[in-house]
């Protein structure tokens, strides 16, 4: 029977599955999620495993699904998540799935390729249209003056732009100007022009016009600006040069007819073709969208199915094939309390596969340590994760997570004690917890959000406890509440005459008029808020409280080690580790706590306390402790007494001597006993061997090096003895952080919000309006987030080092069953 107190009992089982039923049985086991398969083929290459082809097919299917998903995201098609959990399909259905995916992928690729071609054509036609427009502009510009001159000279109606402007000289034929029209990118134009100028030695004439609208590049789908150019030249050689340069500079040329009429006809043809192309392009995109939308409905289900198949085949790869080749053998770890469920699952699997051979599940004795399995619910999961981050518990060791659920938030709250900040944390955590289901369904991404959301129950507890300690420290945003009425009053000195010459008044608890003789019922008295010696008083209290809490937690930790020793029947450790350890801890540091309590109770002012117990005579506990260990005696002023109670000197001496004796008790006996045990076992083995006369190999050659065991024990002893001093002092961080938090909070109020409150006019309200927002932002960012994180870290350290080092070994490995939960919940895990 398992619980969060201790990890579950695991059994190593051998599973015999018939080949037909194997797939279905593993699928059922995966749905249950409580079986961890051991890899029986560890030295087999991944490519030589039995089901490598199926795994490859699954990979291919996943690739196709990912391609589909990418295309859907590009088109903003909404992928439906119905939240259903489909079962892993049968192996024969895999073929259908493969066919569907392949068809979809091919269709999509074809559609995409067609779209690219259409876009290319469309681009060419658009460029041609722009070229025609630009050349029309150029030629009409020239047409005007040239026709005028021609009319003047020759009165010829036929005005061709390529005809020479000057009248032809006799003897020479009419010189024809050729031109080339084309389009190139705007960035390339200057380079192109310069190249033309240099190569043709300035004998070409270039005109360019920008295309105002950006054109879409069909392949990269980005918008580029292009420019239309016209190059005029004379002669064949220049024509060839120009053509070569155009090709070299990747400028596309278009055939442009010379006469106006031909250009107009071409323009109309281009416009018609462009319209047709746009229609076809739109239809193609619609078709693509429809295909994707139809596939989007099933995409999640397909993903889950394919991933489940892959997981099942990975698990099947770990099984061994029987000699008869008819059944598969598996070795798996199963929690003992779940054996019935596993049997049911196996039966269901065999029924589904239609096989008549029932699977056999029998337990075998494990040779290695079983995995550690903690059954957690959504509340304890967070705390278990905190503990596991340090180290997974050894098999069947006491689980510290159970105690961490309370001690962690409590220690956090001691360091964070402010009711206002605790309330903010509490409200945030409460929102996350109450809206759990909706927040999980919305699948918000972001690592920081996931961290906060995963720890929502931890935050909730921390918030609760912080509000509690905030009320005890009487600190809400650095102000105190006076609910019950303060026990301190001004008394007879509250006269105007007295106050006019005295700067500070000291309230003496001795006088009835100044102190009610009964303390404030719950928490710090609100008078301390305005007292000048507030910090001195709180320091003393918080330091002592920190030591007491620390010693209590450490003693508890050592007690847990007792439970572990009893469970594992480790009586040597019980007598020679636990007993000296607890005596040492209680003898020295438990005694320190007793001194603290004694001082609190027996020293004070008032008629109840006699001369040696007056307030001025209270000895410093730390000095007393140091003197105890050093066997020193201090001088004290009359009439005080050095000792707090009778026989203190004798008691202290005895305690110190006993504790000193405990140290060698921790160090020497255990290795010697283990050594003698090992020798006895070896002698027994040799005797048995002698008698039986057959030299069968020893099962396990138990190694035992005496020196190693001694060194290990020495390390443990030193760690414990020195650690008890250093860890006790380490708990003082509970005081330090709460002091820092209180002071930061006070500084923030005084430096930010008080400015708005110290205004005399109504302008103060506007200032207060803005300063409050600044104060609130700083409170959340510095005091809640930063200080919260800091206190969290320190609490974590206190648990991991100071608490767990007393009993926790943490040398186990986690139980990783074959489960489909992460496939269903999120797609972050990869196969």
């Amino acid at each position, binding site marked *: 029977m398992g619980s969060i107190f201790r990890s579950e009992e695991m059994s190593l089982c051998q599973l015999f599955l018939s080949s037909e039923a194997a797939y279905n049985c593993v699928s059922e086991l995966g749905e249950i999620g409580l079986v961890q398969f051991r890899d029986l083929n560890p030295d087999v290459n991944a490519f030589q495993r039995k089901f490598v082809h199926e795994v490859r097919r699954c990979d291919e299917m996943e690739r196709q699904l990912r391609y589909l998903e990418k295309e859907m995201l590009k088109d903003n098609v909404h992928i439906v998540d119905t939240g259903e959990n489909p079962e892993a399909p049968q192996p024969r259905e895999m073929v259908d799935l493969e066919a569907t995916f392949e068809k979809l992928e091919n269709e999509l690729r074809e559609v995409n390729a067609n779209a690219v071609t259409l876009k290319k054509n469309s681009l060419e036609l658009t460029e041609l249209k722009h070229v025609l427009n630009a050349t029309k502009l150029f030629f009409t510009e020239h047409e005007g003056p040239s026709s005028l001159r021609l009319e003047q000279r020759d009165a010829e109606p036929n005005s061709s732009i390529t005809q020479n402007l000057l009248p032809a000289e006799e003897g020479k034929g009419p010189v024809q100007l050729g031109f080339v029209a084309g389009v190139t990118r705007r960035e390339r134009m200057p380079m192109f022009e310069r190249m033309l100028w240099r190569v043709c030695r300035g004998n070409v004439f270039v005109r360019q016009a920008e295309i105002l609208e950006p054109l879409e590049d069909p392949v990269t789908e980005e918008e580029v600006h292009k420019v239309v150019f016209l190059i005029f030249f004379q002669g064949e050689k220049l024509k060839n040069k120009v053509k070569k340069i155009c090709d070299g500079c990747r400028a596309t040329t278009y055939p442009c007819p010379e006469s106006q009429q031909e250009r107009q006809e071409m323009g109309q043809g281009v416009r018609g073709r462009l319209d047709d192309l746009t229609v076809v392009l739109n239809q193609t995109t619609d078709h693509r969208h429809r295909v994707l939308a139809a596939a989007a409905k099933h995409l999640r289900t397909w993903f889950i199915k394919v991933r489940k198949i892959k997981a099942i085949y990975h698990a099947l790869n770990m099984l061994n094939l029987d000699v008869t080749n008819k059944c598969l053998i598996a070795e798996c770890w199963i929690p003992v309390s779940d054996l019935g469920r596993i049997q049911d699952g196996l039966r269901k699997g065999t029924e589904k596969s239609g096989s008549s051979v029932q699977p056999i599940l029998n337990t075998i004795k494990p040779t290695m340590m079983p995995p550690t399995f903690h059954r957690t619910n959504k509340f304890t999961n967070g705390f278990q994760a905190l503990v596991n981050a340090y180290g997974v518990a050894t098999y069947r060791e006491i689980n510290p997570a159970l105690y961490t659920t309370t001690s962690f938030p409590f220690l956090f709250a001691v360091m964070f004690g402010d009711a206002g900040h605790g309330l903010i944390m509490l409200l945030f955590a409460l929102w996350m917890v109450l809206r759990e289901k909706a927040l999980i369904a919305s699948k918000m991404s972001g690592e920081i959000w996931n961290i906060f959301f995963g720890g929502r129950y931890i935050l909730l507890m921390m918030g609760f406890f912080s509000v509690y300690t905030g009320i005890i420290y009487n600190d809400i945003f650095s*102000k*105190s*509440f*006076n609910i019950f009425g303060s026990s301190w009053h001004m008394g007879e000195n509250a006269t*105007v005459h007295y*106050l*006019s010459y005295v700067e500070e008044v000291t309230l003496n608890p001795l006088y009835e008029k100044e102190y009610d003789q009964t303390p404030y019922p719950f928490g710090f008295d*609100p008078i301390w*808020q*305005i007292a000048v010696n507030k910090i001195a008083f709180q320091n003393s209290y918080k330091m002592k409280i920190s030591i007491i809490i620390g010693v209590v937690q450490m003693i508890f930790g050592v007690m847990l080690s007792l439970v572990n020793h009893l469970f594992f029947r480790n009586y040597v450790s019980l007598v020679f580790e636990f007993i000296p350890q607890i005596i040492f801890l209680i003898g020295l540091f438990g005694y320190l706590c007793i001194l603290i309590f004694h001082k609190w109770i027996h020293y004070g002012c008032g008629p109840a306390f006699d001369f040696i117990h007056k307030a001025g005579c209270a000895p410093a506990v730390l000095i007393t402790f140091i003197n105890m260990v050093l066997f020193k005696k201090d001088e004290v002023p009359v009439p005080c007494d050095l000792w707090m109670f009778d026989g203190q000197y004798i008691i202290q001496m005895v305690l110190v001597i006993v504790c000193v004796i405990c140290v060698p008790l921790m160090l020497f006996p255990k290795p010697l006993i283990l050594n003698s045990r090992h020798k006895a076992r070896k002698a027994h083995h040799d005797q048995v061997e002698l008698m039986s006369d057959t030299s069968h190999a020893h099962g396990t050659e138990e190694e035992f090096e005496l020196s190693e065991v001694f060194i290990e024990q020495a390390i443990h002893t030193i760690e414990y003895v020195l650690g008890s001093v250093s860890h006790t002092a380490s708990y003082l961080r509970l005081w330090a952080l709460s002091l820092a938090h209180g002071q930061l909070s006070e500084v923030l109020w005084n430096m930010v*919000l*008080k400015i*708005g*409150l*110290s*205004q*005399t006019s*109504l302008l*103060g*309200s*506007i200032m*207060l*309006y803005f300063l*409050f*927002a600044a104060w*609130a*932002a700083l409170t959340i960012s510095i005091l809640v987030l930063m200080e919260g994180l800091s206190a969290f870290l320190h609490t974590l350290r206190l648990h991991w080092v100071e608490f767990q080092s007393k009993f926790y070994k943490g040398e186990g490995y986690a139980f990783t069953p074959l489960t489909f939960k992460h496939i269903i919940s999120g797609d972050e895990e990869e196969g």
Partner: protein
Amino acid sequence: MFKIILNCSCQVFIRHLVMAFCGYKLSLCVLLISVWGLFQLLIMGVFFYTETPAFLEDLPLEGLYDNAGKYMNEVHRGFKSNAFNCLIAACLYIITLGVSGWQFYLNQKTTYQV
């Protein structure tokens, strides 16, 4: 034809009036701070009005006073003025709450539409 154009432009103009000028996150932050500011400033206003000694150090006072009576008058005046300042700031936060709540509601609607 002209009337249709006029109609369309009027609709666009009116829709612009109810457009969100803050984003989703900004309106949410301002909303939360306004709620907090409202509660805290209200409570602080009440406490200043009832002259709690805890807020004695937050008053607008000069350093030294010769006359005890003058000092007490200043204290009372300080408490009252701070109380009113806090309550006025709380009212400003009610307005901010309204505006940011309206913006948040608009942003929620548009995200659902998309």
